[in-house]
């Protein structure tokens, strides 16, 4: 990092805020088209009924909740990187913290849509809010879905505030260099930041407290999401390992998504000097660690199924690798636990194509992990007469495309209009 100076950092980052070219706006238009496709599919579903999706009895939860868990998982590593690694003073986090936090906020927003899409009567969703009413009907706080409402909304609030707090000094930098309308906008957004000693003192304190506050959330949110399943009685769901298993999986997928986003970003925005190979390598090392935890969790599930002597548990864990959805299972195992082990080799974890390829594999594998958990368990649960299979319908694919489009649409808009690397934190590393 010796070649970097305060000026070059500012210049490199601020260069990215230059007006986008034709290719950029084409990309934005395509992504917006994807968003519209998803919206159209959802509208159709609202008018016709959730039956337009592929769910049935017994598999009444399908890709909507798979995507929900997937996006909540993606949302994890942002806060992990910005909060936990901040507390641990891991310097390599600074170049990617901003993008990772942004990813978190947008992933939570995307994830938050899916419970609505999933509902049979989305227009009645306000029943889940503790609104005073004449019948004294209250939401059921015993329900893991109410835990979700609380956990996800808390997480969204805290991660947004944390993200915005971190943005403040950078917004002021942009404001100072901007002219005209942009200057006005950034003046408002930077909340009158002048870089006075008092500002910096409050900012660093606040940032530290937010980091401390957000750290338990990293653990709690996905633990709560895991309880959607673990508190059910369904074999394959009803297990105490779920909270740590889901958290590790979430970080696993989140880190992979960070790599997937960072590698093109650093190439396009010429961030090579800021987001160095060393940074990517550090992420890759962490992926090896989370991959091993996830692999251990898979193994534990099988061991406990065998050890429990419960025929239903045993059946479901035999069914996953050998039954109708075995392809999904093996994608999950190979992509999440085996392929990341290649990062043990230094040439692999320092090679950009390998990093990108493996990170995409992990993303796919983690999507399938949620598929395997959600679909296979209920497809073969207690009553064999009621067993059934699940195939996603075109509407579900449309909504899935819409959700990915929405996420990348927001992210692409962000990186071109806001500083996608924290200039402030980069400068901290220079001292």
């Amino acid at each position, binding site marked *: 990092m010796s070649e970097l100076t305060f000026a070059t950092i500012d210049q490199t980052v601020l260069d990215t805020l230059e007006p986008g070219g034709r290719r950029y706006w084409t990309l934005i238009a395509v992504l917006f088209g994807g968003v519209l496709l998803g919206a159209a599919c959802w509208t159709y579903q609202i008018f016709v009924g959730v039956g337009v999706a592929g769910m049935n009895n017994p598999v009444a939860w399908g890709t909507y909740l798979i995507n929900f868990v997937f996006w909540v998982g993606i949302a994890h590593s942002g806060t992990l990187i910005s909060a936990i690694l901040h507390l641990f003073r891991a310097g390599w986090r600074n170049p990617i913290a901003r993008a990772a936090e942004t990813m978190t906020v947008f992933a939570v927003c995307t994830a938050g849509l899916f419970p609505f899409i*999933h509902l049979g009567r989305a227009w009645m969703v306000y029943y889940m809010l503790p609104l005073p009413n004449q019948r004294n*009907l209250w939401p059921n706080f015993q329900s893991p879905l109410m835990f979700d409402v609380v956990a996800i909304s808390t997480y969204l609030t805290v991660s947004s505030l944390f993200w915005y707090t971190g943005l403040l000094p950078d917004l002021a930098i942009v404001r100072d260099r901007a002219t005209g309308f942009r200057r006005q906008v950034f003046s408002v957004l930077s909340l009158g930041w002048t870089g006075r000693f008092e500002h910096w003192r409050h900012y660093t304190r606040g940032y530290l407290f937010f980091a401390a506050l957000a750290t338990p959330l990293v653990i709690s949110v996905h633990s709560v999401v895991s309880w959607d399943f673990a508190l059910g009685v369904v074999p394959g769901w009803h297990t105490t390992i779920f909270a740590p298993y889901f958290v590790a999986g979430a970080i696993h997928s989140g880190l992979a998504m960070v790599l997937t986003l960072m590698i093109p970003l650093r190439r396009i925005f010429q961030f090579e000097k800021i987001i160095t190979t060393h940074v990517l390598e550090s992420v890759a090392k962490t992926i090896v660690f989370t991959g091993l935890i996830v692999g251990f969790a898979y193994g534990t599930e099988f061991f406990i199924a065998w050890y429990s002597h419960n025929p239903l548990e045993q059946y479901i864990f035999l069914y996953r690798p050998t039954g109708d959805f075995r392809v999904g299972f093996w994608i999950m195992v190979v992509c999440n636990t085996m392929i990341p082990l290649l990062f043990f080799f230094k040439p692999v974890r320092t090679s950009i194509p390998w990093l990108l390829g493996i990170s995409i594999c992990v993303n796919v594998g983690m999507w399938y992990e949620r598929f395997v958990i959600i679909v296979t368990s209920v497809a073969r649960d207690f*009553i064999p007469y009621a067993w059934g299979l699940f195939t996603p319908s075109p509407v579900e694919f449309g909504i899935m495309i819409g959700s990915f489009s929405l996420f990348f649409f927001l992210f692409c808009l962000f990186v071109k209009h806001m500083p996608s690397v924290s200039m402030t934190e980069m400068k901290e590393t220079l001292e």
Partner: protein
Amino acid sequence: MNRRTFLKIAGMGSIAFAAGCSADPEKTLYSLVQAPDDMVTGQPQWYAATCRECPAGCGILAKNREGRVIKVEGNPLHPVNRGKLCIRGQAALQGIYDPDRITAPMLREGEVWRPIGWGEAAGLLRDRGSAAARRGGGRVRMLTEVVGTPFAQLATEALAAWNAPAPLAFETFGYESLKTANHLAFGVEGLVGYRLEQADLLLGFGADFLDTWLSPVEFARRFKRMHAFNGREKGLFIHVAPFQSVTAANADRWVGCRPGSEAVVALGLLQVALDVGRADHLPTDLRAALEHALTPFHRERVLAQADIPSETYDRVIQRLFNARRPLVLPTSAAPAGGNGLAANLAANLLNRVLDPTLAGLDFGCRYRVESAARRQEVQGLVDEVRGGEVDLLLVNNTNPCYALPPGSGVAEALARPGVFVVSFSNVMDDTTARSHMVLPVRLPLESWDLYDGVQGQPGVLQPAMGRLTEAPLLGDVLLETAFAQGRPAEGYKAYLARWLARRGAVATDADWVTLFQQGGLFTPPAEVPPPAFSPDPAAVAAVVAAVVDPAPGPIWLAAPSIRYFDGRGANRAWLQEVPDPLTAVAWQNPILLHPETAADFGLQPGDRVRVEGAGARLEAPLYIWEGVQPDALVMAAGLGHEAYGRYAAGRGANPLALLAPETDPADGGPLWGLRQPVLTRIGEGVVAHADGSRLQHGRKIAVSVPLEDLAGTHAAAPHAAGLTMESFPLTLPLPEGYDPQRDFYPAHDHEGYRWSLVVDLDRCIGCGACAGACYAENNLGVVGERRMIEGREMAWLQVQRYLDPDRPERVLFLPMMCQHCDNAPCESVCPVYAPHHDKEGLNNQIYNRCIGTRFCVQNCPYKVRRFNWFTWQWPDPLPLQLNPDVTVRAKGVMEKCSFCVQRIKAGHNAAKNAKRPIRDGEVTPACAQTCPTEALVFGNLMDPASRVRRMVDDPRAYQVMGYLNTKPAVIYLKKVVQEV
């Protein structure tokens, strides 16, 4: 705003407001200003009538709410069914509300149907009839369903007035061979009753008396009186048949035999009886003739030709000849592979040999279906029409174009120039579509009539609701058109009254009212002793000598269907939607093939196959099933209609079409089997089956217990306390079922009642009547074939079918509905409290509160919750059938069995008015109400004297998946099995 703008807005606004109002005023079936005397809004009226869905003639009570029939239930006074009804009876309503019902007469002009007036139609009929009568005798013919005695008499008179012979009653399943065998063995020209309840052993040769045979509801009741575990023992039932019907699935042993070899087995047993000296009471000449004739039926021949293991045969012999009161039942109504007459005769002779007094047969009970013409006569009529000897053919609610194979020439006969075919059908069925004029007449639930399913026990029919169409009574049509002068009565109702008065049944108006209130004349008939008749040895020997060897090789069988009967049920959406009890297939009738046979043909499960034979072909998916003998290719009759309304037309395939048109010279019946059909695989098929697996995978779901294990068991049941699936104790949904060791939350406080359902699996025959009743009572959506394949069926109650993995012929049925758990997994996971535990223990689903997270169904171990994936459709006028006491659910909400909470509420109202608690048995859910074997018992567990409370003390009591500690309120009693 200026004045002009105000006027513009006001003008536009008022026009928009006016345009938004509907020009169609609300249509109502009744007016409170001029309401009928007996109509009270909100209160049901019950009208006694007789079910006409099959010839058995069960008594029904039709429930009328605000002028329309919404449910039918069995008439408890009726001697045939005693308050119970089968699934077809439950679906009778959908005949009235058929969306494709013909509402006015139509005349066919080429391919176009032109609506005509009622007067014009009657005039045409009168003119055609009198013209035909003028041309000569016998030029007007009538083919009718089996009808009651008074109508048959009127029709005979009417045809006589047209100078023509009496009508022919056409039934697809006409019992020709059994009638002939009864004539030969007992001297009885007809069909007699069977006192199943008095037997300790039943040996059936195919008679599917729990499916369709003669009078299934009656036989289900009688059968369970001998075959239900009574605390000490139960009777034995052995069924020898080529394939498993529901009846065979209820046998202690189904002995699969080659089609056509039932006769060989029965004659072999007869020979054993002669050998062991059981036949010594027979007249000497008969015995000698039998001994001679039966010589070829030695053990080796029986074993080889029937393809049954020798050990099985020995056990059957041992059991049969050691039984105290054995009763042998004849073949099914469609005995295939030849030898039908011999098999029935052998069964009759076995009864004669085993019990000289013939106490097991009721000669006073004569089933009305015996009046059906033999197939030979029907074919003769078809030939006459084809030969131009008939000018006017009247078809009353029967469908020969469907039931007769194409080779019979029935289509050509109807198309012959010169013949005018009038159909009195309410639906455009296969025959009506080929007729020249359709004159719809009133359906049974709209008619005045009398039907005697059993001779001497006539049930009456009366209009149970206002008419939906202007259709007249068929009796009135005949009275108006057939008699030029000297009409026997002004109308059919008067004719009927006169007929009853002449028999001394109705003397006064009060008698008439009583008759129609109770639903029939139910004086118990006098005991009729067995006729003193000795079979003619020569005739018997001739039948035995005519037995053909049942050759090995594939043979095509058409089986009567428990749902569609002979096809007349195919336009009832409920019958399509409720899956077949054995195959769990809905909306289809696949070809049932033994795995070995499928392997021989190189076919895989899921293949779609073309079958060719006797000049016809059909295509259907395959269903690989161990419940058929390897030689048999079985298909349920009833589907494959060319026309019959939207639910039936073009659906499935018609197995009857593949049969040969010739009739059996021995008994005049059809040839039910087709040898050597040609099977070709034509692609992938999709079977719309409701089941996920046929096996229980070692789980404690449908549990059976050997009879030996129960002998000597006392009240101290082995309630071994453990936490595994096997050892978890019975935990009642009462405070006593809570144990601080296991339970985190305290018990519920129930107020006075804790509703519970006890299901005795030993009594359940799997017929599916409960499921049909549930559709009728609770406004369940009918989802159709496609949604069924997708797994979106809405059945609140499924009769699950499980096979023993080691012995797949052993079938266990388990009615599965919401278990109303005390510790319900669905309740805790709903974020908005839509599943709600009420103070009487019911797990209520609050539809308005449900937002459709579907967490409840995911967490329900029993998977009994049903989600409304779409807004289900009830094409007009089907919405008239909907029960006004039950909400019709919209898309996006969860629903499930409510224990018929509307009936519980009605029970509360009645009890509150009378200032007393609800009595045991006063509230009965629709499923328990109709169960022909009373396998379902509903009641209050908090009442120590209630039936359910006493039944849960049975050592057989258990809970499905009880080890989850859900404390289900549905408690099952294990099925008692015994080895033969």
